């Protein structure tokens, strides 16, 4: 176990898990390198803009229905508030949740605050926000500025916790701490475990399902009822009260290995709640592993096997039919590592060949010190040793790869990157819904969506004809790893 809950802050992924953002090679070479103290991270001599880990940390926590985020930063850092404010309202409305106690505010640090320190201002903002919204918890988001000048967030949190009687949890997501935005998830979960989760009073039949938006809430609730358990989809649209009882749950599982590792391992370490290590529920092997491992923990192997058999009977013939039309298609995939590996496996189940895979970072291990199951599965089962790059969403590299490979289709998880492939005339699917490939049924629907995309190409082709890309011919003639420094820098 490498989750250190005694510290005020989570360690970043680079040092905790040996994670990297710079690599170019193949699937199995990356695996080989991971086994010998590596992989070595390759620095870039040129880098496009990427994402700050604060966006992950505070974006995620802002979806808690009765907590307030106070970002202690200049106002520009609080851009995340713009992207989440609509989504939080819409999601809460879909499941009839009152999120009037939630808010996302910023202390708007200015030059004088930087020089003199601004913890008193932070204190005033939290007291005011407590008066206005009466939240059940406040998360203080750190920033580069508050970090550089050494603002004592822990003391403010402790004092205000005593004064206001609610958890005040600093999240140490200073931007300079890490190049891997997923370190922000860890920072948020560290704060939740240490400040929100309470020791268990009893054991419940709840399974913590770590995910983003709970899209398959209804379906999973029905499935789990067959095993005598209830899912709690965390942390979006959960209450502070619900989060405080995560320690009472019977198990924790995740739809994303990247997202889940810190909270899953942390709850296991602190409160003995088993964290289910498995493939994520994408496609056939995924759902079999995901529910199979849950069945073992719950001692419900028989019930799980029955469910899987029913699904298989219902959908496998249809999947095999669709597979005939998809087999031989060549694809490029560009996603965060966990969704990348799990979606790749599902695509291979449909007979699609991955030619190039771009992952937005790479964890050689999770917090159990073992390689991610989904990565290990591909190393052992992928029919081809496809090319792989690791970048923190360097769009220039992605476009170079797409332009060189010219695949039949591109798979993304971020709306912004899908459209870039389309500008090159390559059909693309954005798997924004994390449950888009959930189990047998999801795989069948996904197969149809792919077929639809590669068949109906006119929009993509017309778009490509009318778009002038910002990249030069020179760039498209270079290798995509052109900007990776040749000397290797070990940041493990």
């Amino acid at each position, binding site marked *: 176990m490498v989750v250190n809950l005694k510290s005020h802050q989570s360690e970043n992924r680079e040092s905790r898990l040996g994670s990297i953002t710079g690599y170019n090679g193949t699937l199995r070479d990356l695996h080989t390198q991971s086994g010998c103290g590596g992989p070595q991270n390759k620095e870039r001599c040129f880098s496009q803009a990427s994402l700050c880990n604060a966006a992950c940390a505070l974006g995620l926590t802002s979806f808690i229905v009765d907590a307030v985020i106070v970002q202690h930063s200049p106002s520009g850092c609080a851009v995340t508030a713009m992207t989440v404010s609509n989504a939080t309202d819409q999601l809460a409305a879909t499941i009839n949740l009152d999120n009037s106690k939630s808010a996302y505010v910023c202390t708007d640090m200015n*030059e004088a605050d930087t*020089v003199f*320190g601004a913890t008193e201002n932070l204190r005033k903002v939290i007291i005011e926000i407590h008066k206005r919204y009466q939240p059940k918890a406040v998360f203080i988001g750190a920033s580069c500025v508050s970090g550089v000048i050494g603002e004592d967030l822990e003391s403010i949190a402790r004092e205000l916790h005593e004064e206001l009687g609610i958890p005040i949890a600093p999240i140490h997501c200073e931007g300079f701490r890490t190049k891997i935005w997923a370190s922000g998830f860890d920072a948020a979960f560290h704060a939740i475990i240490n400040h929100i989760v309470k020791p268990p009073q009893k054991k419940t039949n709840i399974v913590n399902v770590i995910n983003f938006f709970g899209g398959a809430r209804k379906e999973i609730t029905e499935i789990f009822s067959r095993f005598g358990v209830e899912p709690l989809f965390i942390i979006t649209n959960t209450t502070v009260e619900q989060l405080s009882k995560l320690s009472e749950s019977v198990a924790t599982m995740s739809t994303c290995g990247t997202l889940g590792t810190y909270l899953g391992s942390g709850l296991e370490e602190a409160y003995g709640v088993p964290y289910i290590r498995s493939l994520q529920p994408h496609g056939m092997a995924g759902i079999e592993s995901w529910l199979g491992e849950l069945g073992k923990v719950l001692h419900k192997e028989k019930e799980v096997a029955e469910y899987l058999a029913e699904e298989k009977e219902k959908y496998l013939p249809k999947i095999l039919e669709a597979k005939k039309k998809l087999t031989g298609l060549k694809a490029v995939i560009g996603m965060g590592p966990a969704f990348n590996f799990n979606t790749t496996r599902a695509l291979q189940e449909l007979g699609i060949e991955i030619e190039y895979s771009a992952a937005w970072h790479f964890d050689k291990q999770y917090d159990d010190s073992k390689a991610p199951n989904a990565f290990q599965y591909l190393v052992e089962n992928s029919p081809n040793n496809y090319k792989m790059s690791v970048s923190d969403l360097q769009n220039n590299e992605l476009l170079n790869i797409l332009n060189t490979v010219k695949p039949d289709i591109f798979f993304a998880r971020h709306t912004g990157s899908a459209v870039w492939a389309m500008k090159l005339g390559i059909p693309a699917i954005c798997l924004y819904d994390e449950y888009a490939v959930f189990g047998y049924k999801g795989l069948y629907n996904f197969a149809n969506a792919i077929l639809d995309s590669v068949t109906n190409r006119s929009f993509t082709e017309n778009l490509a004809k009318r778009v002038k890309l910002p990249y030069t011919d020179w760039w498209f003639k270079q290798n995509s790893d052109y900007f990776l420094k040749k000397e290797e820098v070990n940041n493990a």
Partner: protein
Amino acid sequence: MAEKKVKQIAIYGKGGIGKSTTTSNLTAALSLAGYKVMQFGCDPKSDSTNTLRGGTYIPTVLDSLRESTIVKPHEVIYTGFNGVYCVEAGGPAPGVGCAGRGIITAVELLKKGRIFEELDLDYVIYDVLGDVVCGGFAMPIREGIAEHVFTVSSADFMAVYAANNLFKGIQKYSNSGGALLGGVIANSINAPYAKDIIDDFVAQTQTQVIEYIPRSVTVTQSELQGKTTLEAAPNSAQAQVYKRLAEKIAAHTQSKTPKPLDVKELRDWAAKWGDNLLALETGEIRSEAAGI
């Protein structure tokens, strides 16, 4: 008529080495020589100009920043002994905020206001806190704010270490229009070996001693009255030393890039002097360092 060029000088040195004392006496001496001088204290303690103002504190530039981003000159510029202008950058309370950023902000605020030009100054003398520990403390030597840097150093190793660090800072900015080194003001030089140590250090780093200032009880007596030596004891021998320093600095025109010692060189250099001093203490006569 061409606009008069204000001569801007930054004085650095380890904390407690007598930097503010030396700077204030230099300011006073330049003023008595007929120049219009401003002393700009760059230390959050904001006590650089105390002895020019009868031991009193003045409101700081950063105090005014709390109210507004535009500095009103009358709020931050105070006159002291013989009409010298006194400014204190100010800064955060100990343990909070960022003093380095404070110095950057304070200097920029004053620059923006074109206050130096309006006051028709001959000299601005920055008295900068301690070591060049971060970017803020390098502000006066960056971006052509000061042209000449002098460092106050005694013969103590830690003072020399701080001076050497300053030389590194100057060297770093020397190619981008930063200030260059005028020389070392050797302070508290009484023992014969102290002069030898400083002389050796400036030789190693290819700079010069601009003046030797002996330790003197007159300075202490003056400071206890809240005054510079120039004000409290203008006819004393020590006052003449400061006047000589002022004359040399007024005549100084060409500063240079120093050659700081690297970590190992500095350690070896210190070890050599450690041996020499031990030999001196035990009566071994081995060099001119014995002062014989």
